[in-house]
Structures are given as C-alpha cells and as structure tokens.
C-alpha cells in the first residue's frame, strides 16, 4: 500500500534492528492483547518507547491505537501492556464483536482533505473508540453514534476515530483494508516533516506487514520461505459498488 506513494519504501519489522533502520513505524490492526503479549515477551516495549520518544512518527490502526494510548478500558483479565504516549482514553471493542463490525463513510480532516473532499470508506472491525482526548491531542475525524451506542458512551454524541498528537497518529478503523491511500499520505507527510527537521537523506517508511522478499540476482537459490511467501492480500475498492468481490486488483504488486 505505502509503496504506491512516490519515494516510499516499506518493510516488515519483527525485531530491534529492523526498528532502528526505520524512519517511521506503523502498528497495524490485529489483536492488541496478542500484540502486547508478544512485544513484551521479546522485550520490544522499551525499544518502541525509545523510538517514540525520539520523536519518530508512529501510526497505530485499531489495535495499534489501543497500544499507543495511555489508558484503555475493556482489557483482558490482569490488564495488558500499553506503549502509551497518546493522551487519551480508549474503549476496546467499543462497537462490539465481529457481528457488530461495520463500514461507514467518514469525513477526512479539513487540513488534509483532497480537493474533491470525498468521504473515506472506513472499515471498523471489533473496533475501539476514543472516549476522551487530552488537551494536546488533535481530533482529525469523528464518528456520530446512534442511540444505542450513545447509551454505552454515557451520552456522548460522537466519538473520535482518528487523532494526532505530535509524532503519533492513530485511527480506530483500518485504512490498510481499502485502496484509498489518503491516510497513508497523512502519515508519510508526518514522516517527511520529521526527516526534514533531521536532515536525513533517506526517506524510508517501515510498515509492519508482510512483504514479498526481493530476490538477490547474484544468488539463484531463493530460500524456501521467500519462495513461497504469498503476495499481499487484496484490498477493497474505496467506494463500495455493491459487488461482492469488490477487490481492487489494479494495485497488487
């Protein structure tokens, strides 16, 4: 996805070395319980905190948002590790389980909107919501709640679903599942801004998703785990056409 933006390189981060080689990190969707468990087990949490404190941009989507938040409700028994840094209160699985997952068109923030200003097809899956945001947190997009959801949010009319605070960007929905790269562009702009400050020549952005390993031309033998890696999963088109298999096949690498 990110590589569709000019001059951006993305790769997968699984350990400290890969993290140190990155200019920005995306923490994608997944299960935040699992994510925190594994990051803790491999001792990555202090590294990630240092990475954030060095003002490197981080973007969390869905589970990544929970991971970045200072406070979360609805955690597993015994709590879970959070990276922290984002001054807000997040409600895990605010919108309920899988059968309450949904798609909605949300507005893009005015400062980043493209000329057409078209809404964004956002996919919410067992999604969290941001109930309270601290003073330093800029709300980029909100989602209006229906009556039932308002009750759960103790009368709040809308919840924030996209926020920015310094070098941290967080979204409750999954821009990685649709072919619209506007949120990706928001993040890349953040990385570029940071790089311009640092006068760093390279512009590489690391994405924590599966990527196809490039074959080394000097070595005809490709290890089995690189040979068999499947291509990226398809993403859905930015507007729902009503077709069932509405996959965007144009941009598959």
């Amino acid at each position, binding site marked *: 996805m990110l590589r569709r933006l000019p001059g951006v390189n993305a790769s997968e981060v*699984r350990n400290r070395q890969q993290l140190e080689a990155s200019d920005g990190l995306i923490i994608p*969707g997944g299960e935040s319980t699992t994510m925190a468990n*594994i990051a803790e*087990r491999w001792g990555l949490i202090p590294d990630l905190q240092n990475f954030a404190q060095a003002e490197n941009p981080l973007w969390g989507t869905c589970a990544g948002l929970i991971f970045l938040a200072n406070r979360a409700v609805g955690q597993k028994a015994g709590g879970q590790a959070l990276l922290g840094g984002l001054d807000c209160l997040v409600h895990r699985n605010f919108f309920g389980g899988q059968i309450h997952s949904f798609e*909605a068109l949300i*507005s893009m923030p005015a400062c980043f909107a493209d000329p057409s200003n078209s809404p964004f097809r956002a996919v919410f899956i*067992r999604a969290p919501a941001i109930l309270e945001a601290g003073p330093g947190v800029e709300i980029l997009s909100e989602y209006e709640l229906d009556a039932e959801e308002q009750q759960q949010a103790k009368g709040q009319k809308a919840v924030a679903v996209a926020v920015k605070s310094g070098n941290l960007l967080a979204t409750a929905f999954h821009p990685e*599942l649709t072919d619209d790269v506007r949120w990706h562009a928001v993040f890349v702009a953040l990385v570029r801004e940071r790089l311009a400050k640092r006068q760093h020549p390279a512009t590489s952005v690391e994405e924590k998703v599966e990527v196809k390993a490039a074959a080394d031309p000097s070595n005809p033998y490709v290890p089995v785990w690189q040979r068999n890696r499947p291509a990226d999963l398809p993403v859905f088109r930015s507007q729902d056409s009503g077709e069932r298999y509405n996959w965007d096949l144009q941009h*598959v690498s």
Partner: protein
Amino acid sequence: MAESTKNLKASFAVKVGLAQMLKGGVIMDVTNQDEARIAEEAGAVAVMALERVPADIRKNGGVARMSDPTMITSIRKAVTIPVMAKARIGHYVEAQILEALGCDYIDESEVLTPADDAHHINKHNFQAPFVCGCRDLGEALRRVAEGAAMIRTKGEAGTGNVVEAVRHCRAVMGAIRALQTMDDDELYVYAKEIRAPIELIRQTKHLGRLPVVNFAAGGVSTPADAALMMQMGVDGVFVGSGIFKSGDPAKRARAIVQAVTHYNEPKILAEVSSGLGEAMVGIDCRTKDFNSYAARSE
C-alpha cells in the same frame, strides 16, 4: 452528513477484514475458560470453543455436533480475543444459533459430523463471517463463492500428524502456481475441471494467492510443524488437539505462537522447541481403519 455516515454492516469487506487481522497468528482449540485463558496468555489471536478437541472426537466416536451455547458464552466472557465456534457442514440452524450467540467467527467444519452430504451453508445469508476447510484450490474457491471469508487447509484433525496438512497446502499452493502460468483462454476449461467459479479463478490468478486469508489446520502439534506450514506459505495456523493433549500446554502454546512469528529463523525455532515435554501421541493416517474427516465433504 447523515448520508455520509451510513453504516454498512457485515459487508464482505468487513468479514474478510477480521480474518486479515488474524494473519500471522495462531488459533487454538479450547474446551473451557481455563484453557481459553492459557491460549490468550500464550498469544493466540483467537480461540475455537468446542466441547471435545478433535482427538477426543476420534477416540469417542459417535456423532459430533455444535457445542453447548453455555460453554461458548462462558469462554466469550473469559477472553478479549475473538471466539470462534464450529457448526456442522450444511447445518444452517446451528450456524444461526452461533450467530445469535455473538460468535466472532463460525467454522463450518468437517471435524463435526456433516449434516448435509451435498450442500454447504449459504454463508452470504449470515452477518457472522465463516471459515471453511479445503483440500485443494477448487474446494477453496467453492467455499469462497458460498461466502466463506477465510479458508483453512483441512489436514486431518486430531491426528497430531502433519502429513495431510502438508498435502492439502501443497495442493492449493501448487495449483495457484500452475494457474499463474496459464493462458487466460485456458481458464474456462480449468474452472470446469476444478469445479470453481471462473471469476474467482481469474482473481486468484491475478493475485497469485487465494483472495481471502488461508490458515493451515489439522495435525499441527509442534512449533516445527507450525513453522513448516508458515514456510509453505499459509497466513497462520490452527492448532487443535496438539496443545491441550500435550504434557505442558501453556509452554507448548507459547512456543507455537513464537514459532509462527519467527517461522523463518531456525535459531529461534530451536530455542522455542526445547524442553516442551511430551507431544501428543499421534495417529498414522495410512492404516486401514483410519477414518478421514477431510474426505467427508468437498
């Protein structure tokens, strides 16, 4: 504004989306709250709630059915990760019940005794997403056509023997590789041969992979088995009897999760494979009286 926030519940994109969030993870069979907590602590991305693990279904025989809703509900209360449950093949009322319970995913599973020997559930009728088993590409795409949002290669559940999982994975991956070399004009006959919809075959050829997440299942019982399946190109792994039929379930569960994360780093695999205690016993799939679950549906 009212127009622009119109919700679309349970679209195919949303159903496929959850499965994509499970990518690179391990889904574990659990039969009670304690096992579910062990699985969650070990780093499972989801749990499959069922009354008997497949190894016990094999041992006890009889008709295997959907689990008691009480058990499924209690497991949902115990953990924050998604909870899946199994319905019999073609038994759409069991699926309706599981959907009403709020299961995050329904597995239309050959491990339970099929209720319909010809038809699968029309999964487009449901809000809950489905995962289905397959032995080859045709079977996988037939399930996607019926509305499955996630696929798993069947293997042979409850055997602790990875050979069938490998066979089915090779069949799917190999067919996709062959498909990519085919001329577009040849796809019509190929669709007829493997009995799958032409449109999905075209998309699979273009993508070079199944259009939905594909996990391996049925026989994975060690970290090495899990890493083997990952190296063969699946997106994640189901572990059934392998964990809670072994000597030290908590340790083994953790080791399998680590093996799936670091599937291509043999040094880490060696480390996590050490001192796990007894593995489940396992069954040879070539004996005469072996009862294949995978062959119960196509």
